[in-house]
């Protein structure tokens, strides 16, 4: 039954662009799937190790600008630009991670905010390279397609990315490495005293998480075609990943996806209903506060715990969802 319902959901996700009446809803679908992929990527670090980063949009922006610049300025083929840019960002994240994960809790959050703010300033200030606030224009790699067809194509590319990130999260959560990350989330000193090399585990999680977010950034650059530092290096953008994960349930494989399915369309709705106001930012902030205060475990955690407790004891009952 579970397999059948899963297959139906996958089929519905694949068929979505043909089920909706116009290309605007396909565009909204691309955004939603992109957010879902990013929130799930964020959750490799935030959900498994408990380290909350508000600065993951730094990696999105770097992935976007890296890919965009290689395509627009050097004329590289887009798959190569995407791969090189993503690998570069992952390496950068590993280096930053070595320093960043030395601090915990609120200090770590502040370090990540500082990172994205620094990247924002750099991208805005280095106009000769990035175009600054004028925005960098990235030529579409699929120039023969009209805008609607491009949405259709990128919807499926982002869907493939989402599938890859979900698979990665699932594999990590079931592995001994994932068990070590969860131990870090529960009590880092205790984990260390039991022989878990916590610093190395955290750096790898940080880099892996950044890798997938950078990939999303690169795809975004190719899809959207215009990069503005204020948007791609935005703390609010990074906070959206956190909100989606918390709302859906960051201890669960599908939690960030569920969060994205609620938050991303809601954001689009606010934009249409209220125009180019900043009300959607207020709504994001209010929702984040409400979730943290009243539902810190998210929607799926409640449901999962109920089902989990109903099950008969197993050889190794797992404490996190998604297995």
């Amino acid at each position, binding site marked *: 039954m579970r397999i059948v319902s899963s297959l139906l959901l996958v089929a519905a996700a694949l068929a979505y662009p043909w089920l909706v009446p116009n290309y605007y809803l396909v565009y909204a679908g691309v955004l939603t799937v992109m957010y879902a992929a990013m929130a799930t990527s964020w959750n490799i670090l935030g959900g498994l190790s408990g380290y909350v980063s508000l600065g993951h949009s730094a990696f999105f922006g770097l992935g976007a600008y890296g890919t965009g610049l290689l395509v627009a300025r050097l004329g590289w083929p887009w798959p190569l630009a995407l791969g090189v840019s993503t690998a570069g960002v992952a390496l950068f994240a590993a280096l930053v991670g070595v320093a960043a994960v030395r601090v915990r809790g609120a200090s770590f959050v502040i370090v990540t905010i500082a990172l994205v703010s620094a990247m924002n300033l750099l991208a805005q200030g280095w106009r000769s390279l990035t175009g600054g606030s004028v925005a960098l224009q990235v030529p579409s790699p699929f120039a023969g397609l009209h805008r609607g067809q491009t949405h259709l194509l990128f919807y499926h590319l982002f869907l493939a990315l989402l599938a890859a990130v979900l698979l990665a999260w699932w594999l990590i959560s079931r592995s001994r490495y994932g068990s070590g990350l*969860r131990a870090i989330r529960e009590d880092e000193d205790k984990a260390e005293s*039991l022989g878990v090399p916590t610093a190395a585990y955290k750096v790898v999680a940080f880099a892996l998480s950044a890798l997938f977010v950078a990939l999303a950034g690169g795809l975004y650059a190719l899809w959207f075609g215009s990069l503005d530092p204020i948007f791609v290096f935005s703390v609010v953008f990074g906070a959206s990943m956190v909100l989606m994960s918390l709302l859906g349930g960051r201890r669960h494989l599908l939690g960030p996806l569920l969060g994205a399915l609620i938050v991303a369309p809601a954001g689009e709705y606010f934009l249409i209903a209220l125009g180019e106001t900043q009300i959607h930012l207020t709504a994001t902030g209010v929702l984040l506060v409400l979730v943290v205060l009243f539902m810190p475990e998210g929607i799926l955690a409640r449901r999962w715990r109920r089902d989990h407790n109903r099950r008969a004891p197993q*050889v190794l009952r797992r404490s996190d969802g998604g297995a």
Partner: protein
Amino acid sequence: MITTAGLRKSYGGVTAVRDATVEVLPGKINALIGPNGSGKTTFFNLVTGLIKPDSGTVHYRDTDITGRSPHRIAHLGLGRTFQLCRIFPRMTVLENMLVAVRRTRLRELLAGIGNPAEIERARGWLRRTGIEHMETAEARELSYGQQKLLELAAVLMAEPELILLDEPAGGVNPALIERLVTLIRELNAEGHTFLVVEHNMDMVMGMSDHVIVFDRGAPICAGPPRQVRSDPRVLEAYLGV
């Protein structure tokens, strides 16, 4: 087994441990006692790498482990529990046990949690500590005493030679203390060395081979329980006479 020389640690103007030169005897049950605030737990944290000393050295067998990270020290064969019981509350009892299994190769890291041999070994320790019936429960569902036993069982899962227990009897009922003492004696007979910080003097004097006494951050006396009990420096530290 553990030898410290001139170990010192200060926090601002307060010296928590000063000039601590201590020897932990191999194969024995060593106890570390002293009044509250005498530096016992700080000494534990210095030995296990949780905090770095300002000066002095820590040797484990012939290896200088001063300032090494806790996980590296754990890999050498030192296991520890904490003063306030620390477990992974939202992981199951069995998962708590399996965290302690050492993983080094990439293939091991990516493998599923716990192979059958490891799970069986974990169950063996849970049986010995008497909490095997709780293996699928989340650790936070256990009573405080059971959590103490789980903490010890998880340490044993890492196969340490030297086990440092920080107040194992604290907040535990007398029946459980009896079980703990029996287990410590059995494990000692099997070759494990212990260093136990404890305020329960009946327990300390009853089971220890070697007692080290701390006062105001420094060791003041060490020897067999009978000798330590009658040492005037110890009486002064505890009773002020």
